[in-house]
């Protein structure tokens, strides 16, 4: 069998590698240009955390403006200079902050930071492989991401400021240098950063798919994979199929910006410049290209969180995940439908109403697999024996947020309701709850759950509990009232509402939301302290399997080296969810099936 032979060849190769490198690892090869998937995962995680702090800080700054539009903060001017003249954020700075917050959180934190971290960390460990299919490509993936980060960061220091036209970067605003200061150099850097990011995500995604398909250990059939791996697999497939479309859209945008083409431009007269010579392009074309990535992107963010939540919930309920095959089927359905719903972001662009109706149907269809997942999670809890580890709390929080935000998706996916709610605070509430905060909860759950495997130490539990409850309450306090603002028609991306008779009644609510946002942000700092302190000083892990879990990563030593298992890779004999079977608390995957064992 060639497959097994290849596996074996790889194994022995892995051994050699392992032995060889042990003594020659320099600081540079171990921590910087590492090809060990575990180190690359940590690099993704920590870079993602740096971006999360920056992105979060940006949201605090623009919430400051929304909550206290009249107030002046002299210290702001000393930090931001001309962007906060007289201690008040300028509209220009506000829009730059909003745009960068969105871009960074969606792509750099919840894509690279989430699936970059956990795909790298968990795939080889949970499928029983010594490393990724191509460790070198994996390293490149991180360094492309790092370069993208540097370019994005540098865009914040150019004279005319970073891009400020919203993270969706719709042309003509993003295509015309003279339409907005942020559309000058800042936009070129934004595009370059995003292009590098796409390369990073493709290198990563191809690697994840190749690894999952080819490098599973003996006995690890596809239906014995933990749901985390399935979720990460679908995530990678979505990314590989949709990111190139964004890249092509961005390349056309570069041409329109700098080389005089008219892909997206037609019939334009810019104030102070005059009529442009571009004719025949379609501004809507970009939106199709953007959302063809943009919608699958939502699931690129959400699926890894779903996978980890399924795993963590099962482990901590001491019960098998309910409906493994249904969970798998719904993941598959979501992944397929993710490609067929993009135009629901475009109901009010003048889209053909019939086309719109098709997208309504397909969009609401996606609620069915989502509902299946929720009911399966609830049934997993039913008659379990729940341990509230911080990871489990965040998993439960994820389900709660996924329900709340998912249900408002039914509103927005229905074009007749969207025609009023589109681009209001209702949308902000919806996607922050279901995609932003929920995925962030998935990420937190993952960090709390796998931290002992990553660093061989425990995070502080009490800080974890405080972190969870404040963040959970804060998430609802911030985003729940925004539904009401949306129902009043309050538009997104407004710097100030004071001139609007229809929207200014919410000044007190804006202040409240801003205050809660600051408290929640401060609580995240508490998490960071916990994280970095525990890496060095946390309680040491003494049990190689601290959560009494079935999956393979816990069969490695407490601090696994490059190659993961010092000896042979364990063979898999069962699915990963034998918890509470025949009265036995848990039966790891590498335990052979007993003679009298019942089948599940």
């Amino acid at each position, binding site marked *: 069998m060639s497959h097994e032979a290849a596996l074996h060849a790889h194994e022995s190769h892995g051994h050699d590698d392992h032995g060889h490198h042990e003594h020659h690892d320099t600081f540079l090869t171990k921590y910087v240009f590492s090809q060990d998937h575990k180190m690359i995962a940590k690099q993704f995680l920590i870079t993602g955390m740096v971006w999360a702090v920056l992105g979060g800080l940006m949201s605090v700054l623009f919430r400051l403006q929304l909550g206290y539009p009249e107030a002046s903060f002299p210290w702001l001017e000393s930090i931001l200079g001309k962007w906060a003249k007289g201690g008040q954020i300028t509209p220009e700075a506000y829009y730059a902050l909003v745009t960068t917050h969105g871009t960074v959180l969606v792509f750099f934190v919840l894509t690279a930071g989430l699936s970059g971290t956990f795909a790298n960390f968990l795939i080889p460990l949970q499928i029983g492989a010594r490393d990724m299919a191509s460790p070198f490509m994996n390293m490149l993936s991180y360094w492309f991401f790092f370069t993208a980060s540097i370019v994005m960061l540098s865009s914040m220091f150019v004279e005319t400021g970073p891009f400020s036209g919203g993270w969706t970067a719709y042309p003509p605003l993003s295509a015309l240098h003279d339409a907005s200061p942020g559309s000058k150099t800042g936009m070129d850097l934004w595009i370059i950063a995003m292009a590098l990011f796409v390369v990073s995500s493709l290198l990563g995604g191809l690697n994840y798919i190749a690894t999952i398909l080819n490098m599973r250990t003996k006995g690890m059939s596809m239906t014995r994979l933990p749901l985390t791996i399935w979720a990460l697999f679908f995530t990678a497939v979505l990314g590989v199929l949709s990111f190139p479309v964004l890249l092509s859209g961005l390349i056309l945008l570069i041409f329109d910006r700098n080389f005089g083409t008219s892909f997206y431009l037609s019939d334009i007269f810019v104030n102070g410049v005059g009529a442009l010579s571009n*004719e025949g392009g379609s501004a809507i074309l970009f939106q199709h290209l953007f959302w063809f990535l943009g919608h699958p992107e939502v699931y690129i963010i959400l699926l890894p969180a779903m996978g980890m939540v399924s795993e963590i919930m099962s482990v901590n309920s001491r019960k098998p995940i309910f409906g493994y095959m249904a969970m798998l089927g719904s993941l598959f359905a979501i992944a397929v439908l993710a490609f067929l719903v993009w135009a629901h972001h475009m109901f009010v662009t003048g889209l053909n109403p019939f086309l719109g109706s098709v997208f309504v149907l397909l969009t609401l269809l996606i609620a069915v697999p989502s*509902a299946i997942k929720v009911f399966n999670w609830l049934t997993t809890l039913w008659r379990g024996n729940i341990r509230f580890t911080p990871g489990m709390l965040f998993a439960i929080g994820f389900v709660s947020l996924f329900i709340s935000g998912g249900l408002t998706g039914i509103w927005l996916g229905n074009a007749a309701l969207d*025609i009023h709610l589109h681009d209001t605070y209702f949308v902000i509430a919806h996607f922050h709850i279901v995609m932003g905060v929920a995925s962030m909860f998935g990420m937190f759950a993952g960090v709390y759950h796998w931290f002992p495997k990553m660093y061989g130490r425990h995070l*502080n539990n*009490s800080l974890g509990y405080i972190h969870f409850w404040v963040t959970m309450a804060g998430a609802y*306090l911030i985003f729940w009232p925004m539904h009401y603002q949306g129902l009043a028609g309050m*538009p997104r991306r407004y710097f100030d509402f004071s001139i609007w008779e229809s929207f200014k009644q919410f000044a007190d609510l804006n202040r409240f939301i801003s205050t809660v946002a600051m408290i929640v942000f401060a609580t995240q700092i508490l998490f960071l302290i916990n994280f970095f302190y525990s890496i060095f000083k946390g309680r040491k892990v003494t049990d190689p399997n601290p959560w009494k879990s079935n999956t393979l990563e816990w069969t490695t030593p407490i601090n696994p080296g490059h190659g993961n298992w010092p000896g042979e890779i364990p063979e898999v004999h069962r699915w990963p969810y034998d918890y*509470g079977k025949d009265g036995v608390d848990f039966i790891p995957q590498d335990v052979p099936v007993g003679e009298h064992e019942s089948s599940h």
Partner: protein
Amino acid sequence: MNLYLSVAIITLIFVVIFQISKASEYVSILKGEENSRKQNNKINGFLMIVFLVLGFVGIYVCNELYFGKTLLAYEAASVQGDKWDEMFWITLVVTGVVFVATQIILFWFSYKYQEDENRKVFFFAHSTKLELIWTAIPAITLTVLVIFGLRNWFYFTGDAPKNAMVVEVTGKQFGWIFRYPGKDAVFGKKYYRNIDPATNSVGIIWDDKYAQDDILTEQTMYVVKGQPVKLIIGSRDVIHDVGLTAFRLKMDAVPGIPTTMWFTPKFTTKEMREKTGNPNYTYEISCDQMCGNGHYSMKGIIEVVEQEEYDLWMAKQKAQYYTAFPEKDPDAIKAAEAGGKVNAEAPVAKDSTAKVATAKM
């Protein structure tokens, strides 16, 4: 100074929380890790129920405070809005029931099935029957919502009634321009290279015989109560969006690709002032698509009036042609004739060709 003080206080709070948490770790070692873990489990299980209860209280309070400030506190101001409101309530009931039920189940299960030494977990991995039930129920419910939704969607996006009054709306950074077709009820053709911000803000081709009575106004649009209005929407520069909050509708303004939207206003601005009790109430057009640094201030106003008032207003409007060519203005000519000075008139056609030529340069 204030900043340093608050930073100091926050740091202090962090240090205290951190030290207490650190200490709790040592305490747990003293008490026995297993014992303290069980205690933590009980606390968190209890908090699940607390969160559930406080959550629903919070929703109630939020509703009390803010429902009155949403649009739904008053009757919708357009026929379309009524249908929207109806759909709102249907969707709210459907999703609301699911929301309440699932959140209660989630937190109640978390509380009820928290770790207990005596409980033997129920090994329950699969049930085709259950999966089928909760595939079918959402599918049926969603079908109902889709049917309601699409019926309204096709009504909203369908053709405007024949008696609809037509207004052209053009967005620009950062304001709105409205064009009325004038007496002939037909818009003159336009070409964007003819745009002259001072006299021809939408680029009307003056040669066109339908163009010369077109009326342009900025910022404020007049429409008649009870008469359907069809908007032909476009943009001069970047994408904007005509957001008609009170009428529950919106549509993008895209350069180069005209879009349309129609609605029937139910109440005049005056009537809305009485209904809302707000003497400053106006129907506002908000730009709902990010369009640059002035996005938040891109406001237009719709005055909904009775037919008589509209006619009076319309009578006062002057065709834009005469702003572009003051010498053609009959009033001006009359005044000039009265003064006894008659200029040699250049033919209209020649004049406007010159205009097109300059614009194209």
